[in-house]
């Protein structure tokens, strides 16, 4: 085993883990590590402008590559600024490894300058974290950290490294010798449960696949198996926000996204089905609506690698604990071996019913030739970019995010980066930087609202410095659109602080950072603006001025069931009653 300083060990361990990019920000407690980074060229370091940006960039990197994203930040404020990103990654099961500096071990607990109880603060928002007090243990812990971040249900981990541990010399443990055996979540599903699922599929008359981010986390292989299984059964498939792209939007069996702002046909099919096969989703409250009336007549199968997801919210009839890819592989093999068939006449009737629901055309909106409707802007963005196989879409959080999920089609996994569980405004722009770092030649578009976008606008300098041609497509309604929509629906149109006052001139802002800025407000100019954005070789802001008071439909109001959806232009007075209004 080689002897080296702790700081050198960090860089060595990252190289051994195949890390290519680190997003970070230096400070007193990580100076020895930055000194090592300075003296090598294998790992690229991206200097962000705020630690929250580093973590979201690492998330974007991880979601778009399937590899863990890595951050390096200093102690105290560096670590606390990373907390939102860690929580975001925990909620959405994104593998990231955050390395934090810490004050020297002999000063821990003395309220030293830039000291914070980092492992204490981040304990509930990481999958696991470590404070390393011994240089000999550092290599081992970093390898364990990668193992835990990637293994089972992925998630964020944090390693806190005191400055004296970075300076001291110790023995470096290579990855092959690291103690990782104790964390080995079960990946193979119970064969009996898989058989039961196959039997239920053979008997189902009104089935539906309900898939989530777990399919994407399981990898491209799992997505291929899902496609094969869906095509073999001919069942309709819907997905959560997190799972978009696992099954192609152009696929024959695709129903569109489900949930609070999901498609009418997807939600009605969930409500009316007799067999629900949940593949890597977690019955989030944005999906279920009112629990007591959630899919009341169906038998439910749930494939999940996390035992705590099973029966947490919705009781299921057949739980299958395991990795989606492994379980689908077994299920498909069994399906073929049995020569299984579905009930064709019943399925034809079910598809006919779905066809009836589709006729509602739930995404219809009233277009205008005077003002750009946000839905129209996204329809045009889709039309002008959907042939680009290298198109990656990020979003911020709010109405624009839901419209993007409704109007953009995803053909492949890992091409859609959005903050689902935590709903972090300010996620999308730094995430787009992380995606572009991983895919330098790809088309990376962040569909944003102006309010979310301003939350991490400091990262403009990062994009400029690293020549990242990220496209910021801002649907500017000068409102916190989703907040305003809820205030309209349940607070008597009292728009308390949901205005974006004192907005910058986005074109001048872009130019101030050496970007291109485009403003568009006439629907007739929209295509030209999008094409100009696509043609420009560098970062662009498109300030797309849209209808200010457009509402996002369809919508399952809080506290309602799937079959109580509001459609566009609906009468919204009293849509949410007092009981629903306490919910978020």
């Amino acid at each position, binding site marked *: 085993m080689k002897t080296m300083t702790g700081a050198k060990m960090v860089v060595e361990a990252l190289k051994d883990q195949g890390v290519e990019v680190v997003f970070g920000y230096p400070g007193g407690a990580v100076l020895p590590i930055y000194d090592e980074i300075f003296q090598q060229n294998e790992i690229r370091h991206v200097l962000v402008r705020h630690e929250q940006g580093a973590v979201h960039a690492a998330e974007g990197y991880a979601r778009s590559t399937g590899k863990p994203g890595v951050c390096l930040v200093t102690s105290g404020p560096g670590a606390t600024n990373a907390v939102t990103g860690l929580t975001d990654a925990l909620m959405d099961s994104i593998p990231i490894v955050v390395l934090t500096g810490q004050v020297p071990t002999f000063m821990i607990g003395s309220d030293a300058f830039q000291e914070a109880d980092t*492992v*204490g603060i981040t*304990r*509930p928002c990481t*999958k*696991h974290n470590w*404070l390393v007090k011994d240089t000999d243990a550092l290599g081992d812990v970093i390898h364990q950290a990668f193992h*835990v971040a990637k293994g089972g249900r992925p998630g964020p981990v944090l390693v806190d490294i005191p400055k004296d541990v970075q300076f001291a010399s110790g023995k470096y443990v290579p990855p092959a010798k690291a103690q990782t055996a*104790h*964390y080995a979540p079960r990946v193979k599903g119970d064969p009996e449960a898989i058989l039961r699922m196959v039997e239920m599929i053979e008997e189902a008359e009104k089935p539906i696949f309900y898939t989530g981010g777990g399919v994407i986390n399981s990898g491209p292989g799992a997505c291929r198996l899902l496609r094969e299984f869906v095509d073999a059964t001919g069942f309709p498939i819907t997905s959560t926000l997190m799972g978009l792209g696992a099954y192609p939007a152009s696929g024959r069996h695709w129903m569109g996204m489900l949930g609070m702002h999901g498609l009418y046909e997807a939600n009605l099919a969930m409500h009316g089905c007799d067999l629900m096969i949940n593949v890597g989703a977690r019955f989030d*409250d944005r999906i*279920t*609506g*009112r*629990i*007591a*009336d959630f899919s009341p007549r169906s038998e439910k199968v749930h494939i999940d690698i*996390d*035992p*705590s997801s*099973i*029966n*947490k*919210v919705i*009781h299921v009839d057949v739980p299958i604990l395991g990795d989606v890819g492994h379980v689908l592989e077994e299920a498909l093999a069994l399906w073929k071996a049995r020569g299984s068939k579905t009930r064709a006449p019943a399925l034809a009737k079910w598809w006919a019913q779905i066809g009836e629901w589709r006729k509602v055309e739930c995404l219809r909106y009233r277009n205008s030739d005077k003002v750009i409707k946000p839905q129209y802007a996204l329809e045009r963005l889709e039309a002008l970019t959907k042939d680009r196989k290298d198109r990656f879409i990020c979003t911020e959080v709010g109405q624009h995010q839901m419209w993007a999920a409704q109007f953009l089609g995803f053909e492949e996994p890992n091409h859609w980066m959005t903050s689902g569980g935590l709903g972090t405004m300010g996620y999308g722009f730094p995430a787009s930087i992380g995606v572009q770092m991983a895919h330098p030649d790809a088309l990376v578009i962040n569909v944003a609202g102006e309010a979310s976008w301003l939350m991490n606008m400091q990262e403009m300098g990062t994009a400029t410095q690293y020549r990242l041609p990220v496209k910021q497509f801002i649907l500017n309604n000068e409102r916190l659109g989703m907040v305003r929509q809820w205030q309209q629906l349940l607070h008597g149109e009292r728009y308390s602080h949901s205005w974006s006052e004192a907005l910058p001139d986005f074109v001048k802002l872009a130019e101030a950072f050496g970007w291109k800025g485009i403003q568009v407000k006439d629907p007739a100019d929209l295509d030209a603006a999008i094409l100009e954005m696509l043609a420009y070789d560098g970062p662009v802001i498109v300030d797309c001025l849209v209808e200010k008071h457009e509402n996002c439909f369809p919508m399952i109001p*809080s*506290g*309602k069931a799937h079959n109580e959806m509001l459609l566009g232009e609906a009468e919204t007075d009293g849509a949410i*009653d*007092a*009981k*629903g*209004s*306490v*919910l978020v």
Partner: protein
Amino acid sequence: MSALKIKKGSSSHSAYDLRDPHAEGLEKHTLAVIVANEAGVLARVIGLFSGRGYNIESLTVAEVDHAGHRSRITVVTTGTPSVIEQIKAQLGRIVPVHEVHDLTVEGKSVERELALFKVAGEGNNRVEALRLADIFRANVVDSTLESFVFEITGTPEKIDAFADLMRPIGLVEMARTGVAALSRGTRG
């Protein structure tokens, strides 16, 4: 919530489950959690209970295998059957947690708690305290002319009963360890 007059048990009007957990029949379970003996592991377990709103009725922790770096945490908790299942699944997810056993459902088990009682008094009360201690097989571990400290081991119910008897005859204070529990029989 009260301002909106949400009736407890009216989960049918909510996207969240607002049912009163007490309406569904609470169960008391004793869990044995075998953890790696590392810094912060107790905080992880306790943080899980407080963060997700679970109850802790009693908790004990100590190293049980020095060479293997294992500690045993015994938690007594109450909840509906689904909450108990969720607690076990959440505990199992913590990286340094090696095993989670629900002693209440995994066959028969024995539970013991140790308590120290300080009882002060004179005359007849003193005699009565000693007589009761004898019945409960409590030992005197400290004595002055006006007080005793008793040591008693037993189930939590036995210790409760002893406390109830000692209270009127001069119970000053008590210290309890919380429950330690093992399954019966040969298997570990």
